[in-house]
């Protein structure tokens, strides 16, 4: 029966490679959240000398394109150096999978974010972050693009939920255009904290909601 996925996607979906939890990984990253839909965890084992990925595993709570991307990305990244792994792009992965439906881009990007996040996690844990560039509002915005707006499955920035970002002496304040009692407020706060707090020069993160904000409709046309 024809499905909107290529044979390669379906093959990886049916028989995902390197799947499962890794005990005592050298690095780990979890992208997405159950409240938003898809979620990917990537685990790495890295050779300290060569900085090559000796083992990689992933877990997925998501659709076929999420599972397939997670699977193929572990195949591509295994044996590569951390630097090489960071260069892997969504385009490259999508091509190797024989293409993905455009509506499924988000689900597959998550797996790439997972790999990059795990590499960053390794570098941060092992003091490999060479240049400690100071955090900017641009960098914060970039990180917020990895926090999903669960109501539409697109990121906070793209759906205009970030009203303001203030950065002053290691203190970040993010104003979100949702009422504080919104069903996803707590979840979004947690995710924003997760993305911003690890930045080396950030001491305090505050997530503010807006009592005046209209509760947006679930369905937007």
């Amino acid at each position, binding site marked *: *029966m024809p*499905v909107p996925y290529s044979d390669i996607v*379906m093959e990886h*979906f*049916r028989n*995902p490679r390197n*799947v*499962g*939890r890794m005990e005592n990984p050298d690095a780990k990253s*979890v992208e997405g959240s*159950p*409240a*938003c*839909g*898809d*979620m*990917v*965890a990537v685990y790495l084992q890295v050779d300290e000398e060569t900085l090559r990925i000796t083992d990689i595993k992933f*877990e*997925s*709570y*998501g*659709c*076929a394109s*999420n*599972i397939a991307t997670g699977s193929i990305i572990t195949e591509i990244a295994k044996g590569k150096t951390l630097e090489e792994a960071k260069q892997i792009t969504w385009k490259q992965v999508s091509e190797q999978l024989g293409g993905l439906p455009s*509506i*499924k881009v*988000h*689900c597959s990007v998550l797996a790439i974010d997972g790999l990059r996040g795990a590499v960053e996690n390794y570098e941060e844990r092992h003091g490999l972050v060479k240049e400690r560039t100071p955090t900017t509002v641009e960098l914060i915005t970039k990180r917020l693009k990895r926090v999903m707006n*669960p*109501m*539409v*499955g*697109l990121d906070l920035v793209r759906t205009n939920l970030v009203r303001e970002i203030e950065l002053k002496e290691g203190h970040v304040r993010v104003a979100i255009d949702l009422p504080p009692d919104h*069903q*996803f407020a707590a979840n979004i706060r947690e995710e924003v904290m997760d993305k911003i707090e690890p930045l080396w020069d950030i001491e305090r993160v505050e997530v503010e909601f807006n009592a005046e904000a209209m509760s947006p409709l*679930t*369905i937007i*046309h």
Partner: protein
Amino acid sequence: MGGLIYLDNAAATRLDERVLEAMRPYFFETYAVATSQFGYSPGIDAKDALEGARATVAGALGAAPEELIFTSGSAESSNTAIKGVAQALGQKKGRHLVTSAIEDFAVLHSVRALERQGYTATTVGVDGDGRVDLDELREAITPETILVSVQAANQEIGTLQDLEAIGAICREKGVLFHTDATHTFLRVALDVREVAVDLVTVTADRMHGPKGIGGLYVRAGTPLTKWMDGGFQEFNLRGGAENIPGAVGFARAVELVTDEETARLAGMRDRLIALLLEVPHARLNGHPTLRLPQNANISFRFVEGESVLLHLDMRQMAVSTGSACFSRSLEASHVILGIGGDHERAHGSIRFTFGRFNREEDVDEVAAAAAEVIERLREISPLGKE
């Protein structure tokens, strides 16, 4: 679709061969249109067939034949009811409508289209089982209200609404009442002589009838402006040449539904629900007893619906999900969110809907396959392992 176990009968049903047989002469022999009745005899035969079909479909609702118009299906019926009443009463009475949060898109989007034209609408919430809050409904009705549209049963979670009570409230408040009975028609009794409903959406394609034919019951005297201009067909409420094979097929499909069959579907539903609730972290969506006889809807935690569907498809089983990943808009089911569920619950919700061609043995097979697929997907999920 040889070995396919098809449990998505809420989306579409297989045509019953007997329906096709009834329709056949109206493609090859009596292919005239009913408006030719004064010109030549095939026109008379066509007219007789159309009116016979109308009497059958109307009769199934306890309505008079002239209270039923044929349409192209449930979406058109609901559009006609909502926009037709709005057009007819917008200038005279008011421009406010009331509906529920979990209606099908034909209703929700018709109301939204009217809102863009300056009408206002109140969406009444539902409880955790999907039942409309009757007090909230009563309070939502204002002197400006012209129509209340609340479905007979939900398309996803199967919850039935108390049409009698809603009809009584509408009658008391003097507003018209439309119900989308797409999924309940002939499966759950509705007699318009007993329930104060003014407009009822029905369709053939969810009960083994042909696609492209539906009906709208319009209680005599209900103000309704037509939007499809054409000849004077359908009591001048819908222009366009009549779909006579479709109408005949619809009527035949109506005749073929029996209470015994509905009881059989309910039996399969109950068995499937019982089996699936044995899977860990599974919960029923919708009302435990006041639900469509052919609908089971279960949410499984830690797995995503599209993945479940694709794995079941590989085992030749067809079901549906409220997961955002499955929808064309990447939005989670508004029904699951409407009953207070979160994204995660919608993500893992699987709908199984039965029809005439399902066999009792399908139930155990599907339940076993679903349990296996869910276990497999949970193994690769980062959730639920702590």
